[in-house]
């Protein structure tokens, strides 16, 4: 069964189709919300609100093949509102736990790589919500600028501007990190 067929059935009130779509996108949605809000509890609230809205408003989706983009639009806007309401508050222990895990690194490279990863993560988290949202969508979820613009309900130029601003802020944060060649690339 295609996703379009699932969406058609969802619009008829088929809870099983909803469950299958949720299973497919739940972790992608949670990761995006987590990176935007910076908080596990808030990100779960965002995902919860998003999928309840999906259930309640699915009949408003005009194009059955556009479910993912539509769902992500709801999620991103919900996360954005959540992020604006609350200051980012990722507990330090979560940061340190991840930083200390050293996943993917080994031996002499580990210290440098860990420092670099910590710095990058902190730099992204320190971005204002507007810039952080587009960075997450552009770099992590690999959406195109026009797709991000549609999700956020802004012009493409606005997204480009936010990306540009984010790059400048990241450059300021990352300059001097061992092994990084930010000046050349940003």
């Amino acid at each position, binding site marked *: *069964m*295609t*996703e*379009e067929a*699932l969406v058609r*059935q969802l619009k*008829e*009130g*088929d*809870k*099983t*189709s*909803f*469950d*299958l779509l*949720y299973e*497919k996108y*739940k*972790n*992608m*949605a*949670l*990761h995006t919300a*987590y*990176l935007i809000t910076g908080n*596990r509890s808030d*990100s*779960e609230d965002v*995902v*919860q609100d998003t*999928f*309840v809205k999906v*259930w*309640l408003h699915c009949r408003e989706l005009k194009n059955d*093949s556009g*479910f*993912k983009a539509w769902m992500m639009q709801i999620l991103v806007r919900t996360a954005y509102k959540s992020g604006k309401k609350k200051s980012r508050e990722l507990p330090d222990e979560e940061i340190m736990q*991840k930083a200390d*895990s050293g*996943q*993917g690194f080994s031996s002499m490279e580990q210290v440098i790589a860990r420092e*670099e*990863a910590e710095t*990058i*993560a902190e730099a*992204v988290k320190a971005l204002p919500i507007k810039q952080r949202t587009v*960075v*997450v969508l552009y*770099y*992590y979820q*690999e959406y195109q600028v026009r797709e991000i613009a549609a999700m956020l309900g802004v012009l493409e130029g606005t997204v480009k501007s936010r990306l540009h601003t984010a790059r400048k802020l*990241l450059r300021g944060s*990352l300059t001097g990190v061992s092994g*990084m*060649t*930010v000046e050349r*690339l*940003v």
Partner: protein
Amino acid sequence: MRQREDWEEKIKNVLALECDGVTASRELKDRIDERILESQKEAGHMKKLSMKKLAIGVAVGCLLVSGGAFAAGRVVSLTSHSYKLDACRNYGDMDKIQAKLGYAADTVEKFSNGYCFEKMSVDDVNGNDADGNVIYTYKDLNISYEKSGEPTVWLDVVKPVESSVRRGNPEATRQAGGVTLYYDTTTYKFVPSNYELTDEDRANQEKDNFTISYGSDEVEIQTASDVIWEKDGVKYHLMGFDLNLGADEMFDMAEEIMGTK
């Protein structure tokens, strides 16, 4: 795909590392279901289950008659009202649940392979005609079983008002206590929206047990496994996705439910 510079890849990798271990919990889904149920109660919203969905047997937590098609022509859809808020996590309440169900059903609390009862609920199911009129109503029982590190197994029990007929050829069968058990699998291939079907995909689509689902970030394949049987007018459906269980193991679980093993 966009060409990324080295630092951009590092950002993606770091963000991916940040998400490591962040997975949607079962409690989150329960909360979503509860919110939906509340909205249903408020709006009198009912969910409809298409006959096609029923026929291919992918439904979870609702009436499941995999491989079957309703004989009568009047009913074109089934409407199910789930009471997730009433989901019971105490197997000791099975008598109360079965009283609510209105008919006796074979169940077990624990399987010999380690799967254990997690929760159960009773749904109201309506058969509707083309105009949405309710032709009949009955109840079905949904039970989920969990085992550490393994996918969930669901048991759905229903006493169908209309007779059902089996279609297609099952992958395996077993006779137990005068009852025939049917085993089937259905493969779901989730693919990106721009995915181009291969010759193999096209050939697979001709099969009853293969479906393509567009919209995922990457190609992912999941397989649903089912065992169906009917005993004393009650239909049973044991199923799960990507189970580490073969036909014989699922047949054994079915027999444990039936009490013949």
